[in-house]
């Protein structure tokens, strides 16, 4: 099975120091691994990295030596140095030596390819998610749980998650560096990627394959949580949960927002379970539980949501959401506020999970 982040941690620290103390940590760093797939990939990199350092230092040292030792000096007499045309054994040696290094790299490489890239049959324990990429957002469908959501992938820690990747338009690539390397989403091709998270947390990712327009803003979040929290989250999507959401809409502003969702045309593209069936844009069921909006571009706060709905092109240039109000529309502020209130209320009746709460 895959090695977890173990002995190579130490090597990693050394390599970090070697690179002049450059910070290699970050929310999307491939070294801040949080799952076995990413950890094994980082380990393999560190293993190769040391060969690379060795080769580079050896070559550069020899070159620097030659540059200083054999440079033409001021007192050069113009004589011709020894005309050496080649030394067979030496050339044989530096043909074979790299080959040896490459064999040493090759074996762990092929082993890890077989471990991480072979197609897996999802078992009882595994969570299956159908991932579909669209310009410029992600759809996550949990076929076993009957849940469809967008841009935020909830997964339980410690369980293998098998992602079936497909695209609804152009190519995309699913990349959450702290959990696993990327895999492309290609129309008419069923790709698969599996990963798992060791610890609860919020992991950032973004589309890694150019998909025109707002490619830079096609981000996502993976929220890994305990089994209990994950079940609670999934349950809030079940039939009852969705109905409950509707039932509790009560204040006039919420009612107005709910009505506007249809009259302003939101429902033509967006779905809300039990209320709207749009298919062209992210499913907004339980939107209030999300930590982010516009495909991970901004935190899900009422202020950000207000800006997003008022002027979508400002927050996420190039995206396909229409601007629904002219700047001088007198009803703009009131209607946006109602929509924001309505959207933020979705799903909040179901108790938000503790870890999500903490991260808001």
């Amino acid at each position, binding site marked *: 099975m895959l090695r977890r982040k173990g002995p190579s941690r130490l090597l990693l620290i050394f390599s970090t120091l070697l690179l002049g103390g450059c910070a290699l940590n970050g*929310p999307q760093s491939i070294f801040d691994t949080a799952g076995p797939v990413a950890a094994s990939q980082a380990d393999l990199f560190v293993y190769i990295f040391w060969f690379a350092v060795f080769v580079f230092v050896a070559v550069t040292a020899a070159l620097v030596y030659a540059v200083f030792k054999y440079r033409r000096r001021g007192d050069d007499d113009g004589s011709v140095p020894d*005309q050496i*045309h080649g030394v067979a054994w030496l050339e044989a040696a530096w043909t074979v030596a790299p080959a040896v290094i490459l064999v040493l790299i090759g074996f762990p490489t092929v082993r890890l390819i077989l471990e991480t*890239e072979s197609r897996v049959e999802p078992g009882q324990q595994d969570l299956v998610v159908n991932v579909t990429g669209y310009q410029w957002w992600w759809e996550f469908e949990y076929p076993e749980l009957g849940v469809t959501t967008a841009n935020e992938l909830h997964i339980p820690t410690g369980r293998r998650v098998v992602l079936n990747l497909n695209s609804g338009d152009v190519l995309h690539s699913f990349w959450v560096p702290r959990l696993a390397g990327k895999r492309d989403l290609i129309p008419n091709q069923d790709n698969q990627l599996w990963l798992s998270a060791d610890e609860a947390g919020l992991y950032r990712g973004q589309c890694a394959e150019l998909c025109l327009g707002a490619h830079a803003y096609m981000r996502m979040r993976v929220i890994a949580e305990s089994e209990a929290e994950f079940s609670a989250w999934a349950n809030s999507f079940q039939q009852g949960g969705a109905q409950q959401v509707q039932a509790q809409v009560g204040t006039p502003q919420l009612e107005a927002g709910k009505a506007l969702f249809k009259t302003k045309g939101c429902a033509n593209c967006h779905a809300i379970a039990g209320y709207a069936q749009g298919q062209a844009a992210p499913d907004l069921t339980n939107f209030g539980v999300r930590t982010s909006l516009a495909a991970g571009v901004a935190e899900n706060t009422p202020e950000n949501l207000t800006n997003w709905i008022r002027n979508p092109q400002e927050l996420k240039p190039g995206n396909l959401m229409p601007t629904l109000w002219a700047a001088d529309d007198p009803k703009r502020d009131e209607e946006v506020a109602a929509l924001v209130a309505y959207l933020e209320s979705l799903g909040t009746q179901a108790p938000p999970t503790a870890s999500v709460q903490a991260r808001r």
Partner: protein
Amino acid sequence: MALGRQPVPHSAPETRALLKRPTWETGLWSWLTTVDHKRLGILYFVTTFAFFILGSLEAAVIRVQLAAPNQQLVTPDFYNQLFTVHGVTMVFLAIMPLGTAFANYFVPLQIGARDLAFPRLNAFGYWAYLAGGLIFYSSFLLGGAPDAGWFAYAPMTMTEYNPGQGIDFYMVGLLISGIGTLVTAMNLIVTIVNMRAPGMSMMRMPLFPWMMLVTAFLVIFAFPPLTIALFEVIMDRSFGTLFFNPEGGGLPILWQHLFWIFGHPEVYIVILPAFGIISEVIPTFSRKPLFGYPMVVLAGIFIGFMGFAVWSHHMFTTGMGPMANSIFAITSFVIAIPTGVKIFNWMATMWAGRIWFTTAMLFATAFLVTFTMGGITGIMVAVPPFDAQAQDSYFVVAHFHYVMGGGALLSFFAGIYYWFPKMTGRMLSERIGKWVFALVVGGFHLVFFPQHFLGLLGMPRRIQTYDTGLGWDFYNLLSSIGAGVLGLGVMLFIFSLLRDMRSGKEAGDDPWDGRTLEWSISSPPPHHDFGDLPIVTDRDPVWLAKHPELIEKRDELSESSDGAPEAPNAADDEDELVHIPGQSWFPFLASVGLFVGGMAAVYHNWFLGALSVGFITLCVYAWAFEGVGGHYLRVRPNERRSTGLASIRPLSEMAGKGQS
């Protein structure tokens, strides 16, 4: 009798030419109709420089946009156009034809030929390349450049997602410039195989023509798949075929295979000429023969072969499965071995030499370090599990800029400093040269080294902006500052070029104590290059002519086929008659036809397209029947003796000199 070696004087044949063959020697018309490999070489240099500057300006805008997080200086759409055009410009319109520029000028001089085998075809190659480049660039003025990246993955290029004309400009532009690349490659092969100087066996040929020979073969095998792919996209977009369109069951992945089975050899098409230049510069300035010449040649050939067996390493994340990924990882590892052999042989050439650190040699040394780094990161990204993280991140951006920029471009700088005196008769300032070197090499590393860290920190390529807080801000800023330094270096270089072209120090025929035939003739070379064709009995003929005492120490492989090569030169006391090929309108006119036809294809104007095809056919017909043309240049005996190998080596020592 090898092609073109022995012109037989005869009276000009009667021909029914459509246009009289032009004879201008100066002015615009002379440049439009020239067939001289040196003038075409200069046209290539000027054109590639112009495109290089355009590509650099695009890169500069990109770096300004990315200098700080959340900037909105350019829109995402325009940003996509910028990096697409930058990539296409650098790969197809700047670096690759820069190799052709060197080849055009120096392959004939190095192998002792008076021109390429097909001078008019050579002109056509240049004009077709320019036509393709202009079609591609006109997209900026005509409603939007292509925006799908330089490898234009389907289905982004389909009309549904890309309704504008940009993609058509890309497809048609590459198609037409590809015609130019192809004919020039064939021309180079025929020239190198057939027109080497008497006595120059393959194993006596300098490394640069050797690498150009391998490159030309790569072009011939690599461009057809690209041509097919481009045609298929044009068909999909124009006539609704379904090669790549997933809506109708097409396979987007097919484009990737077709593109990369061209695209990976393309990397070697770009880098092998660079290897050739390095293999000329290092021995000259180390005052030693190239270490392990046969190995360096064989390594180049092996790289050429293997270049066709590694294309899918650009596609490790497309879900090809563990078997394909393993195999392509291993083939990619294998290609590192001959590349390493070359690096080691170049270093061994420097070893125990008397290294003269001119600007050219400094660039060559910087090339060794920089290219080694690019090679090492190349091995890293050839490891599919790591590539799963690195693919489409800035790590890959750093890697291929180390190969293309640090590899090809630095060696081209070396080549220009090395050969500028031969082309112009004047030296490029060495004092400014050292500054150019420091700024270009320092700036280069400042731009691209931090990008490795950006990739490791999870920054994908081709994003118009990024959020703060991801650890990317500092490295991006560094990289953008580096771009400024690099830009300064390039500007200083251009200043030096423009100034020293006219007022540089006189170079003389052989300023570097050179080794190969081009250093035996005047600077700049006369129109006919060689009065007497040189008779070559050694690998480094000029060097050994200057140092006859070294002949007994030469490489055994260079000795093998001595004898007395048949020399087609006239008897010593007679005038040598050198055939100068006639200029022609038709290569240029045919390319005008290609340009118009290409535009017609972009705009689906099939009537104009048909007219263009007719016009091109007419040009080709007229070209074929315009007759031999040209004239004979009379070279007096004393002029014959004043340049060339004969002027260096005492006549009495010259083995098998011309008796015919």
